[in-house]
């Protein structure tokens, strides 16, 4: 039962390009994939433009955002030593959301391809900085998360207040839809904006992999194994702020991926918190890409929001968790 399940990992790896092809083939108009691909980046035919300028960046963004959320969740669960933790607990997503909400609130939406996203990233980092300052110098992982919960609660209250006093129904709708997350109408602009933040986040989390391993034994044991430095919790906070903040900024708040994905794939890597980072990124990318394919192919008057899809995937997962707990395996 504690096999390092290489086959499952390969299966996930193989499924990703297939899902990518599926995403490229999905859309309201049917596109001749092979000829559009052959035309290349600068193709002028409508098929090529749809493929290279609309579908490819959207699919790649789904992969990046899913990977960031999955990896952020794995890091968060590792730092808290709790399988029910998720990156939103640190207040980073709320920080991004509040900045975006205030932007939408003043009706400035869609005037620029990247201003909203840039502000949201600023919001994510401001929230992370507030968490860091509130936790104080030399904060342990536990105190850091407590500060995150406090900041998150405060920011959520501000978001609720902003919704309460929304200037118009239209602004309110914009805000609510943004909070539900979406990858629709995202292009290369958003991808290139998010990419450096995701890269920095992944790099930060990479440096904490052995700390997360040691932390499996508790903070005292981790300290005795040479991971006494408070730089490690800081790197995790920075990594989550950067990766998840970047992801939320371009895609809105997408719940459950950071919570469910690490939990699902943990058995595949013998519960190792370090390898969990990579496999969670992979599985998160796959999950969000599949969810977005569902969104694209869903026919309805309103766009189906990807946050609603992931919530529909996440909720049954909790039912399943409770049922296994009732069978006496844990909790």
């Amino acid at each position: 039962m504690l096999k390092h399940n290489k086959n499952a990992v390969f299966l996930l790896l193989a499924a990703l390009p297939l899902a990518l092809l599926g995403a490229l083939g999905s859309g309201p108009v049917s596109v001749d994939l092979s000829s559009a691909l052959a035309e290349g980046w600068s193709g002028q035919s409508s098929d090529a433009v749809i493929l290279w300028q609309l579908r490819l960046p959207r699919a790649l963004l789904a992969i990046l955002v899913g990977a960031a959320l999955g990896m952020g969740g794995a890091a968060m669960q590792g730092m808290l030593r709790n399988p029910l933790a998720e990156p939103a607990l640190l207040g980073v997503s709320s920080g991004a959301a509040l900045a975006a909400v205030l932007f939408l609130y003043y009706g400035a939406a869609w005037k620029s391809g990247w201003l909203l996203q840039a502000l949201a990233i600023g919001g994510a980092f401001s929230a992370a900085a507030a968490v860091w300052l509130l936790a104080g110098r030399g904060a342990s992982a536990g105190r850091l998360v407590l500060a995150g919960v406090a900041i998150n609660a405060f920011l959520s209250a501000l978001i609720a207040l902003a919704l309460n006093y929304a200037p118009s129904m239209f602004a309110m709708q914009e805000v609510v839809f943004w909070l539900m997350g979406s990858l629709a109408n995202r292009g290369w602009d958003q991808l290139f904006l998010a990419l450096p933040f995701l890269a920095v986040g992944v790099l930060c989390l990479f440096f904490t992999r052995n700390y997360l391993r040691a932390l499996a034994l508790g903070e005292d044991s981790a300290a005795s194994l040479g991971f006494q430095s408070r730089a490690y919790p800081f790197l995790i906070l920075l990594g989550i702020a950067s990766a998840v903040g970047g992801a939320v900024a371009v895609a809105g708040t997408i719940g459950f991926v950071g919570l469910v994905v690490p939990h699902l794939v943990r058995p595949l890597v013998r519960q190792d918190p370090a390898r969990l980072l990579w496999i969670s990124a992979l599985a998160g990318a796959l999950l969000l890409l599949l969810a977005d394919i569902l969104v694209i192919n869903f026919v309805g008057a309103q766009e189906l929001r990807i946050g609603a899809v992931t919530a529909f995937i996440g909720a049954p997962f909790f039912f399943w968790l409770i049922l296994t707990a009732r069978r006496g395996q844990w909790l």
Partner: protein
Amino acid sequence: MSIAAEQTIEAACIELGLERGRKSVLRGIHCAFKPFELTAVVGPNGAGKSSLLQCLSGVQNPSSGRVELNGVASGQMTAAQRARLGAFLPQSETPAWSLSAADMVALGLLPWGRLPDREQRIQQALLLVDAQEFAERPVTQLSGGELRRVQLARLLVGRAPLLIADEPTAALDIRHQLQLMQNFRSLADSGKTVVLALHDLSLAARFCDRILLILDGEMLAQGTPQEVLTPALIGEAYGVSCEFRWRDGVADFVPLDLLRKSSG
């Protein structure tokens, strides 16, 4: 149980003080730990035993004074250097994830980075504590005694010359207590410097070479079991009248009654 000590170490606490918040939990602790010696740190709850072990293992930075390992202040070493010299088993080390026993033991090798004989070391450590048969079982499914053996293997796998454990016998039945103390005794005999916090004074008297008696963050007495485990000192530290029945250097500790605390 035999493992040749590759390196021996002398550890010393010099004028060690520790403050937590505004409370001073250790004051002016002066003591030394030598190879081939098994030392017990005893004292009532809250006396500062755990704090002393945390400072000694580098988990806590002392507020004043210093810890020296082979004459070098541990604050001047890198975290990994210090972790290779001294291994620490905290009071409760429950793994957060359902790691296999072997994977949990492997965590003890983290200060060493990549090792060519990694698998060999893990197997050897499991063998030392007689835990090979459940090497692949998830640690969350182990009994208390089995988990403690895996924790001990985790402590030993890095082959640190200084071994520190905080109340390793707590919550173990008498057979496992004896087994564990015998393990630590033979580790000390092979050249390790072993420091344990203990509550069981009989076990301390029987297995340890030296005893440190701590009260309210200060060193009340240190010496051989015969010197430290006297009704007068135990009465002062614990507020309990007691009797030690020495037989062939082994003490039976019999607590008798509570002492009225004298005023002041």
